[in-house]
């Protein structure tokens, strides 16, 4: 899906060669990003990869040591006011005023964006409805649950209908329904031509929303492409089954070994087994033929293309908890 990279539209958000060092820790080491209007660019990476640092620099909240960023064509440092005028940000930690109600929080932001009292009130009502906060609109944000605060903060990012929306882990801490709501909100933004940069820990989210995914690790971009392109980089698929009776598991594993690549993975507790394969669905017929001979009864059988999770683990080569060498753990 390379068309967005050749898109005629000027990117709404662009960062080039971002470098940032905290003490002797090089947190960003040359990150480039572009987001076209009406598209979502997802930033993935393990904890501490530098996602939030990138977001803060792009939004002008943190100065990069090197590199520059612009929003809607405005340099975030030299023309920070114009850049911020086109930006809606929801940071990793909700920035709401605990002493104000949900309504007052959004009304205040509307007023600070220059709206009249009435306009700000209308916009606040709209957003409270959109984010299902209308029931608690009159309650102080300090009394909100974590997910409500998060939603209020996201609503705050949209008050002035920005051209560029930057969301740092927007759905962390949201229940499944609120997450779906959030996705719908983002899809609506795209219809209006808004450019969205989001970071996420949920690969499913990136898969579903993002036109372009950038994977960063230890401050460098290690992969970029559409979800499909990234999945192709991790070849093949997984053939997985579950047996009804644990006694048949050994037979089943042997059958998997006969049709797949390498050693099968076996879990005796759940009666599941799986194996990697580079073949198409015909491999399933072959497996069933093997199993019919030994009379093993299956509960489940499936052939899955590699998920973004597999891609993520393959690319970063280490779990999310692993930190760089110098880091205290």
């Amino acid at each position, binding site marked *: 899906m390379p068309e967005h990279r050749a898109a005629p539209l*000027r990117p709404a958000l662009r960062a080039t060669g971002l470098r940032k060092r905290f003490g002797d820790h090089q947190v960003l080491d040359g990150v480039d990003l572009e987001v076209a209007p009406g598209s979502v660019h997802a930033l993935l990476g393990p904890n501490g990869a530098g996602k939030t640092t990138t977001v*803060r620099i792009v*939004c*002008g*909240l*943190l*100065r990069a040591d090197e590199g520059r960023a612009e929003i*809607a*064509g*405005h340099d975030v440092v030299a*023309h920070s*006011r*114009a850049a*911020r*005028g086109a*930006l*809606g*940000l929801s*940071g990793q*930690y*909700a*920035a*709401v*005023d*605990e*002493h*104000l109600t949900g309504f*007052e929080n959004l009304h*205040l*932001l509307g*007023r*600070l*964006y*220059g709206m009249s009292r009435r306009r700000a009130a209308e916009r606040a009502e709209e957003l409270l409805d959109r984010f299902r906060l209308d029931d608690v609109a009159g309650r*102080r944000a300090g009394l909100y649950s974590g997910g409500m605060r998060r939603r209020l*903060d996201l609503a*705050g990012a949209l008050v002035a209908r920005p051209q560029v929306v930057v969301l740092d882990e927007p759905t962390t801490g949201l229940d499944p329904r609120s997450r779906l709501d959030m996705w719908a909100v983002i899809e609506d933004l795209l219809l209006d031509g808004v450019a969205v940069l989001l970071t996420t820990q949920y690969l499913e989210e990136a898969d579903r929303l993002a036109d372009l995914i950038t994977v960063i690790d230890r401050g460098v971009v290690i992969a970029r492409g559409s979800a499909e392109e990234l999945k192709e980089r991790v070849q093949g698929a997984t053939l997985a089954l579950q047996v009804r009776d644990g006694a048949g598991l050994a037979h089943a594993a042997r059958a998997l070994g006969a049709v797949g690549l390498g050693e099968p993975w076996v879990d005796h507790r759940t009666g599941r087994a799986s194996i990697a394969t580079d073949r198409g669905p015909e491999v399933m017929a072959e497996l069933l033929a093997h199993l019919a001979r030994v009379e093993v009864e299956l509960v489940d059988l499936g052939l899955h293309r590699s998920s973004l999770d597999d891609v993520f683990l393959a690319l970063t080569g280490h779990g999310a908890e692993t930190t760089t060498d110098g880091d205290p753990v």
Partner: protein
Amino acid sequence: MSTRTETRTDVTSEATLLAAGAETLRNGFVLTGRNMRHVARIPGRITTGLVQPVMFVVLFAFVFGGSLGGEDYRRFLMAGIFAQSMVFNASFTTVGLANDLQKGIVERFRSLPMSPLAVILGRTTSDMVVGVATLVVTALCGLAVGWRVEGSAADAALAFLVLVLFGFAMSWVGATVGVFARTVEVAQSAGLIWLFPLSLISTAFVSAENMPTPLREFAAWNPVSAVATSVRDLLGNPTPATLPQPDTWSLQHPTLYAVLSSLAVLAVFMPLVLARYKRLTRG
């Protein structure tokens, strides 16, 4: 589209500067409203604001007043308490600003196309409103212990303006302490230490006669002394003969000196707060 906005940011004509100034004032006003809601909602905030002036009047009038001249002293004393209240009012600015800086809300403010000046202006302005309320409560307490306005209404109004201007200036000093404090804990402890020497090494409550020379000099030129003396003169409250005042220029022209020193404080501290706030929020 981008061409239009670029032109706007490049042209720095007087008109755009004026528009930017008006916008900052407007946002400062909006944030003043927000801060006033906080005053009403933070538990204990109103109580502290009311108890403090009552406590000052009662303590000074009856604890010191007894040995310093009773009724006469109480008439003398009130101007000093007004001035002191304006100094102590700065503590609300310090704590309020440190609080905002420690909370996530400051990140939100920074992501808005708003001058950082508006955030601090909103804070100092709302604290000025609180300061006015404090003056009213203090005056009521004063009336209860026998103090009276003995001058003209116009002079009383001028005295009020001198106090408010001075309070506003002190609020910017408080803001400076707030942005340097980094945490609310530091702001609430070390950040409030300066209030005591500034308000007490003055002629607000006592004569400077018996102070050691350096303190006497400090007291003579301390704006708190000038504010207290100015207010005392304007309200027509006499200075008892037992409390001789230094005859420095500052106290011979107390109103002028009070206004000038307030403006000087603003001129020094406004840019200081702003520079520090910008630095803090840059990283």
